[in-house]
């Protein structure tokens, strides 16, 4: 455990973490993909996770809603400890929305049905109410006029905005973004980032794996840099970009900022 992680894991007295990693380790077969992750995220905090590919940043994020299992240590999300108990996992997933790199909209359902599926079946919301709420979120991501189309008929940027609206429909307390703009054409990245910035301004707790350093600078409360399964460094964006502590961070930043 490095000094920096230690400092960041500490919260001010009386403050409660909404996500807490304690000495989390994970292996894929023999491959040690997450090493001693110790990290806390406060309610309303916006975290950007960056790092080279294979550094474990996606895996760490996906552990928060148990799309990946960790094998050692503990993860506590919203007061619920993550373990094999299906009830706990389902309870956490209700509260954690997720946006994927490849959108993962359901191609056999219309946009509206994509949004209402979970509210109707998981939250047991009446269909009409779910549809009204879905339209509200579609309007917020400025795509309400596409409600009855199928995902295959939308552009990548539009699909990703639908995916964000779909996550919001569950009224989550935490939103996870796993490289939300990496599969998009350059012209579409901005429309997705704008929606994410708007969301951040409203105080949503966000964990975002991304290479959009501009987004990190404007939105993040903290930037986490990972390499080889470890958190190398985590700091406020200004400090992180202007005054990186580790040579590994410096190398990474020099490579992605000056190309």
């Amino acid at each position, binding site marked *: 455990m490095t000094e920096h992680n230690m400092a960041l894991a500490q919260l001010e007295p009386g403050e409660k973490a909404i996500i807490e990693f304690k000495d989390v380790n994970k292996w894929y077969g023999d491959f040690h993909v997450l090493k001693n992750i110790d990290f806390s995220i406060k309610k309303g905090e916006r975290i950007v996770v960056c790092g080279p590919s294979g550094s474990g940043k996606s895996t760490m994020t996906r552990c928060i809603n148990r799309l990946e299992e960790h094998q050692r240590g503990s993860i506590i999300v919203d007061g619920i400890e993550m373990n094999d108990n299906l009830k706990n996992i389902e309870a956490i997933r209700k509260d954690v929305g997720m946006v*994927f790199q490849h959108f993962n909209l*359901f191609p056999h359902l219309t946009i509206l049905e994509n949004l209402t599926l*979970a509210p109707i*079946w998981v939250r047991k919301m009446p269909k009409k109410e779910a549809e009204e709420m879905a339209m509200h979120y579609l309007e917020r991501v400025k795509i309400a006029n596409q409600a009855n189309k199928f995902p295959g*008929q939308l552009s990548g940027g539009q699909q990703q905005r639908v995916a964000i609206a779909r996550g919001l429909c*569950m009224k989550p307390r935490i939103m996870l973004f796993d490289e939300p703009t990496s599969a998009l054409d350059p012209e579409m990245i901005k429309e997705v980032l704008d929606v994410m910035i708007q969301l951040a301004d409203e105080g949503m707790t966000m964990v975002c794996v991304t290479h959009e350093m501009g987004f990190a600078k404007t939105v993040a409360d903290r930037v986490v840099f990972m390499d080889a399964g470890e958190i190398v460094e985590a700091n406020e964006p200004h400090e992180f970009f202007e005054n990186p502590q580790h040579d590994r961070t410096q190398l990474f930043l020099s490579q992605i900022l000056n190309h």
Partner: protein
Amino acid sequence: MAKIFQPSPSLPPPVNSVGAVAWVRQNLLSSPLNIFLTLFSFYVLYLLIPPVVEWGVVNATFGGESKAACTAGGACWAFIGVYFEQFMYGLYPAEETWRINLALILLVVLIAMFAVKAVNKLYLSIGIIAVYPVVAYFLFAGGVFGLEIVETSLWGGLFLTTLLGVVGIVASFPLGVLLALGRQSSMPIAKSVCIVFIETIRAVPLITILFMASVMIPLFLPDGMNFNKLMRVLIGITLFSAAYMAEVIRGGLQAIPKGQYEAADAMGLTYWQSMILVILPQALKLVIPGIVNTFIGLFKDTTLVYIVGMFDLLGRIQAATHDSNWLGTTIEGYAFAGFIYWAACFGMSRYSMTIERKLETGHKRN
């Protein structure tokens, strides 16, 4: 001032790329080899069609009481006419065949009601899946409401073929889905049970299963505990077809991107919710051709019940060709059987294509 970009207007396609002439040119005469193949095909058709028409229509006999009436040298369709009732209903009593017709009409009406907007589709589906089979069973077997009891040993002909096919299809489909899900499951016991079942059934010919069902199972059952042979054969056919169905559906499940499973999980859907609402609708749509392939195979495999002494359409026709009044009518009989099977299977294939088009929701998945 910056220049304003104006996309050029779209133009109509060149005249010679649309219309009938273009179609002929593109599809029949596009290259020397194609011209040759087109001419050759016409020649083969010229050789084949006139003799068939001559035999089947021009020189055919359509009426008469025995083979002796067929003197024109062509097909003896009189044979089919005389035996038609038996080919359709087997030995089902002639005055009771209205019950079969009624059941058929009922089914057609129920299915047609799907097109009516005012009808609740869910109740209608439950009616067709849960209520209709019971009604149909009592119509066929009788014994209630003063309906005369008709032993299943008298059931036969196209009626039996259809019954075996439809029950086999309807019962093997959900079983196949469950087996496919079981084989994909992470629960070791469910998984091994499904694998053992599928691999065992697939490794055995249908004839063996039918034989076991009709001959061997009664030997092992205690006296007095015997159930109907038709029932046993139906179970055999269903299990056999379910094993194949399971593998077809598993192919579909594997083709669904991992992201779909993850998105469903991340929303908090339970296993069954995510399967029924997200995964299966996509997976089944992908494998419609394979599913229909299995259905068509099953429908034709029902002819094997002949082995265990049940007379379906083909069995009835074969038996009728041994009638001393009609010796030498085997070709007509098989031609008729072939036509019926072709019509049924072609119908299924066309219907599946309609469904595929209906379920098409636009461009590629992602």
